[in-house]
């Protein structure tokens, strides 16, 4: 009887209210549940296509980044005759790690010679691996590359929002305190409103009771529905032994208004995005361990320091003209070509493809991206602030985040990431000399950690849009170019197959490069076998 009444009347609005809520948070939970059952959106591809009997067909792979290395590894294992042409004198593409002896000369810039201490490094390219990037994890496992957790979220790290308003603006606040106070304050307001009947039209009495119970739980509210702080935001005096400090002294929350106007809450959703969720990994010793893993297997197939000059093709094969490291010109003939050269570079090359394909290559933008690694004389963030890894969020767009190392805890020195900037801001910072970039990062750091800049004893910066052979951090498809150009490039043009992060919906991630390569070699294999 009750049910009938509800369905006929009140129930509709109540259901739509709850479904409305579901639209915000529920769908994410639903997807997480589906993933757990094995048919979620993470599934993409967790293992390479099973290929065999390549019959010695020749495949030219252009570029020894992760897409090219993946293609070379899988195709050569399957019996294809693979040659890889790589412009640099090392493999990995953007999967690079700067450590002692690593050199980088940006276009128009001075040469930086990394002189971090032995054992210290910065991953100035890709630096983290989400747990659901099963393709990347497939190879770290296959090559026995040890992983460690990349601390991608840290309640103890600071949020420092200088552009906010009110008394908290420009002050470093612990992220956990921001979270506790904004959630507590919001829960209090909502709980009191619901209690006073604000949502009686949308909720049944039972819903209301459960909802208030949830808010009390979520916001650590008192019996009278007030937020007066929570243990989770930390203590003014931490609990300890005996009677002094004994139970310690709880901390006092910042006022809801102050937290609201500081803008610091904007950081809270950052790492809850699907691609930023815990657990995050990094290879022990540097991201380039992945490149080295591939190199051990297929290094002998790679022609290093060799630049592609042109690509021609006809109905029977491809011909690639190149100049090797000694300046000697040569050609490579093959049955098929897998080209992993970034589109930012490829669009300026002499490549024989159809007009629509050529236009599609030119339709994508590349991200301007800058990073700097700073070797610090002392791990003051650990020793003085008790922050072990994670990001300090800083709302100067030339900085964005200062990321503390997830390795070498309690050691003497450490390398942290001093900025991670994008777009026009990355353009501006990249106009600075390496010394000026270091000074810029130092000035920002001093606002968060006293003595920061004095502690810098070595720096290494990279601006990906100024790095030859890359000319950008990653592909950035607009909705329009995704719809028009992207599908064209995902299919072969004659005997040419493109692969790389740019041909995935995981742009900028190593998994995008690997899974794109898997997809293209599977197509190539099917065609080679049909021929």
């Amino acid at each position: 009887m009750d049910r009938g009444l509800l369905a006929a009347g009140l129930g509709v609005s109540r259901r739509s209210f709850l479904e409305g809520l579901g639209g915000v948070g529920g769908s994410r939970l639903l997807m997480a549940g589906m993933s757990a059952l094995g048919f979620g959106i993470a599934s993409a591809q967790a293992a390479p296509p099973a290929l065999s009997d390549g019959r010695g067909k020749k495949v030219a792979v252009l570029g020894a980044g992760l897409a090219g290395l993946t293609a070379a590894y899988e195709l050569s294992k399957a019996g294809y005759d693979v040659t890889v042409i790589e412009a640099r004198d090392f493999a990995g593409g953007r999967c690079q790690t700067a450590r002692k002896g690593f050199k980088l000369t940006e276009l128009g810039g001075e040469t930086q010679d990394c002189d971090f201490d032995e054992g210290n490094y910065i991953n100035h390219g890709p630096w983290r691996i989400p747990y659901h990037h099963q393709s990347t994890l497939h190879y770290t496992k296959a090559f026995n590359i040890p992983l460690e957790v990349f601390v991608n979220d840290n309640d103890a790290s600071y949020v420092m929002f200088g552009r906010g308003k009110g008394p908290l603006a420009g002050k470093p606040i612990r992220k956990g305190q921001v979270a506790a106070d904004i959630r507590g304050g919001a829960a209090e307001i909502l709980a009191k409103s619901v209690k006073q009947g604000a949502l009686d039209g949308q909720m049944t009495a039972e819903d209301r009771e459960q909802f208030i119970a949830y808010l009390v739980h979520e916001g650590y509210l008192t019996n009278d529905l007030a937020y007066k702080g929570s243990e989770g935001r930390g203590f003014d005096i931490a609990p300890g032994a005996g009677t002094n400090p004994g139970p310690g002294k709880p901390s006092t929350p910042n006022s809801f208004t102050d937290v609201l106007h500081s803008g610091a809450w904007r950081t809270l959703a950052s790492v809850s995005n699907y691609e930023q969720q815990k657990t995050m990994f990094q290879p022990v010793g540097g991201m380039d361990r992945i490149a080295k893993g591939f190199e051990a297997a297929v290094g002998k197939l790679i022609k290093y320091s060799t630049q592609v000059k042109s690509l021609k093709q006809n109905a029977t094969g491809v011909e690639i003209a190149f100049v090797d490291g000694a300046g000697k010109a040569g050609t490579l003939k093959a049955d098929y070509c897998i080209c992993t050269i970034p589109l930012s570079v490829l669009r300026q090359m002499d490549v024989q493809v159809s007009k629509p394909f050529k236009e599609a290559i030119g339709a994508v933008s590349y991200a301007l991206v800058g990073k700097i690694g700073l070797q610090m004389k002392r791990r003051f963030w650990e020793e003085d602030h008790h922050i072990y890894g994670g990001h300090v969020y800083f709302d100067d767009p030339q900085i964005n985040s200062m990321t503390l190392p997830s390795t070498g805890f309690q050691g003497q020195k450490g390398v942290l990431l001093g900025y991670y900037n994008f777009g026009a801001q990355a353009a501006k910072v990249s106009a600075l000399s390496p010394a000026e970039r270091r000074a810029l990062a130092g000035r920002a750091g001093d606002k968060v950690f006293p003595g920061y800049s004095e502690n810098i004893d070595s720096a290494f910066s990279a601006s990906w849009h100024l790095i030859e052979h890359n000319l950008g951090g990653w592909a950035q498809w607009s909705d329009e170019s995704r719809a028009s150009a992207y599908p064209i490039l995902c299919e072969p043009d004659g005997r040419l197959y493109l692969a790389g992060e740019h041909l995935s919906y995981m742009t900028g991630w190593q998994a995008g490069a690997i899974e794109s390569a898997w997809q293209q070699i599977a197509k190539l294999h099917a065609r080679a076998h049909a021929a």
Partner: protein
Amino acid sequence: MRFVLAFALVGASLSVQPAAAADGRSLYMDNCAACHRPTGAGVPGAFPALVGSKLIQGDPKEPITRVLQGRGGMPSFHDELSDQQIAVILSYVRQSWGNKGKPVNPTQVSAQRGGKRQNTKAVLQAH
């Protein structure tokens, strides 16, 4: 609260330099020179030269569009630079290194605002 706000406004009006005083060369060096180089020569095979460029010296609509919207490897400066600043930079570029374009005024930039932006990602974290 009202007092604080009024104070902030006074403070702002005192501290902001008239944008007209901004110098074309210094704005160019800050925003453009990393890729297009201090000489405007660009980097062959990577970033286009502005020296002698027909596009740069011709109808100002094209260069204004590129600065506002971005294109290819070039970011959008829509939110980074004011109309005044874009006009000053483009005037500098159109009249330097032997280029002979007409200066650009801020109203020409204002007229083209509101177009679709590319290459922007207002994020604290990526990848």
